[in-house]
């Protein structure tokens, strides 16, 4: 990567950090929901531990699922929000007459997605350890790999969602909040893929998240790190990234053709 590209990406990261730094409600919002979710599912787990043999044998599986699902959600939101901030502030016109390339904006959004995810999830991960003596990281470096896969999947979906917003305007911005939930039933977050009807299982295996959550359960329940599941997640993630980048590039070209880079936000 050339120095100029890195400088421009860092300039945008600086812009989004200024925004976060200047607004404590934004920081609170990042951490609020993951923490509430974790506390609720922590108590649910405590209840089930006394009533379910399966959960008793793998007490952290529900909390782990909640924490990792939030990685995916925050990863996608963190990415999409960068673009939405530019659209809300009608700043895209200024950005794209500067030497900033679209892929540099994508790179900055990826960095911010990672930062927002870490800022948002850190309190819930700490609280999970304090309240329930549960730490995802205690399951080894494989969990970090799964964390990374979910973040990358969030980027792929984030690029597609952003492309939709560029193409259809801010009327489509709610997609940024709800799109990820379409993946929840088939991501095998709280139950194995085998639970799904036969016809739906191939669809589930077309999501990186299904490999990740199956892999998480293999680690937590069986104490086995499944490299094959990690490899599956990586391969499907590459496909998601290629699709996301292609759709984004097409939407950007279309916006340049129909003048939406100037009009968006109005």
């Amino acid at each position, binding site marked *: 990567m050339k120095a*100029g590209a890195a*400088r*421009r990406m*860092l*300039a*945008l990261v*600086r*812009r989004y950090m*200024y*925004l976060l730094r*200047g*607004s404590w409600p934004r920081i609170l919002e990042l951490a609020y929901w993951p923490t509430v979710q974790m506390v609720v599912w922590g108590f649910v787990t405590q209840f089930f531990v006394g009533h379910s043999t399966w959960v008793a044998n793998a007490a952290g599986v529900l909390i782990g699922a909640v924490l990792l699902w939030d990685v995916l959600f925050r990863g996608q939101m963190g990415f999409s929000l960068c673009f939405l*901030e530019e659209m809300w*502030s*009608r*700043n*895209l*016109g*200024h*950005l*794209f*007459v*500067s*030497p*900033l*390339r679209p892929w540099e904006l994508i790179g900055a959004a990826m960095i911010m997605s990672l930062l927002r995810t870490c800022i948002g999830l850190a309190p819930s991960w700490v609280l999970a350890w304090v309240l329930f003596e549960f730490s995802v990281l205690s399951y080894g470096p494989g969990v970090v790999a799964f964390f990374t896969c979910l973040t990358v999947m969030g980027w792929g979906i984030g690029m597609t969602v952003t492309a939709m917003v560029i193409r259809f305007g801010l009327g489509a911005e709610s997609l940024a909040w709800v799109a990820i939930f379409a993946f929840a039933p088939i991501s095998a977050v709280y139950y194995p893929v085998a639970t799904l009807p036969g016809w739906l299982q191939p669809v589930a295996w077309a999501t990186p998240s299904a490999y990740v959550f199956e892999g998480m359960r293999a680690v937590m329940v069986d104490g086995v790190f499944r490299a094959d599941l990690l490899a599956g997640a990586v391969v499907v993630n590459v496909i998601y990234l290629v699709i996301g980048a292609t759709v984004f590039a097409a939407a950007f*070209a279309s916006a*340049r*053709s*129909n*003048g939406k*880079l*100037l009009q968006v*936000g*109005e």
Partner: protein
Amino acid sequence: MTTPAISVRALTKRFGDITAVRGISFSVEEGRVSALLGGNGAGKTTTISMLLGLLTPSSGEVRIHGVDMVADRYRALPTMNFSSPYVDLPHRLSVRENLRVYADLYGVPQPRRRIDELAGALDLVELLGRRTGQLSAGQKTRVALAKALINRPRVLLLDEPTASLDPDSADWVRTYLEDYARAESATILLASHNMAEVERLCDRVLMMRAGAIVDRGSPNSLLARYGRSTLEDVFLDIARDRASSEGEAA
């Protein structure tokens, strides 16, 4: 023969059935200040957007210092900048933060120094720590101008640069732009409805109507051609179709 700073050939932009810009051609020599004049919907903003590469032309060519803006715009963009009332700077960032982000995007050396320099020149010193969204319209216009000058552009495109400014501030900004163009040998193309501004700043005027350039020349030559004493009267003649087309005029 020197390469013009801005060269436009047969530039056309269609949005579906609507033709916003119709095969216009013009060039602006380095160090000159020119104006695009025309009523609402004449095609000025669309033309400026195509010059910046923000909008892809349907056909035709735009070159900035010889660089093709459709195929190779990233070579030209570091030497250009623009301001427009239709594009905002992020409201929640302070003026200094906004200018710092754009200084970094353009790779401005010693950004703090450049920001302080512009703040002094454009009377923004007291505003640097304030959120951009809290500023008055006139203050925002001055901040937008500071952003447009942050990289000392050789080509500056300004859409209504003194909109929302009181007469005193507007005069001050015009003086600054005159000095800047002279000191930096910068080429400026501005779209404006303010005829006094155009008469004062511009060597050359391009009159637009319905997406076409219907006349062009220096302010004095246009006044003489239309037999009018002010550019505003010339503008009204053209806007109300009391003028011959460019071909007939020439």
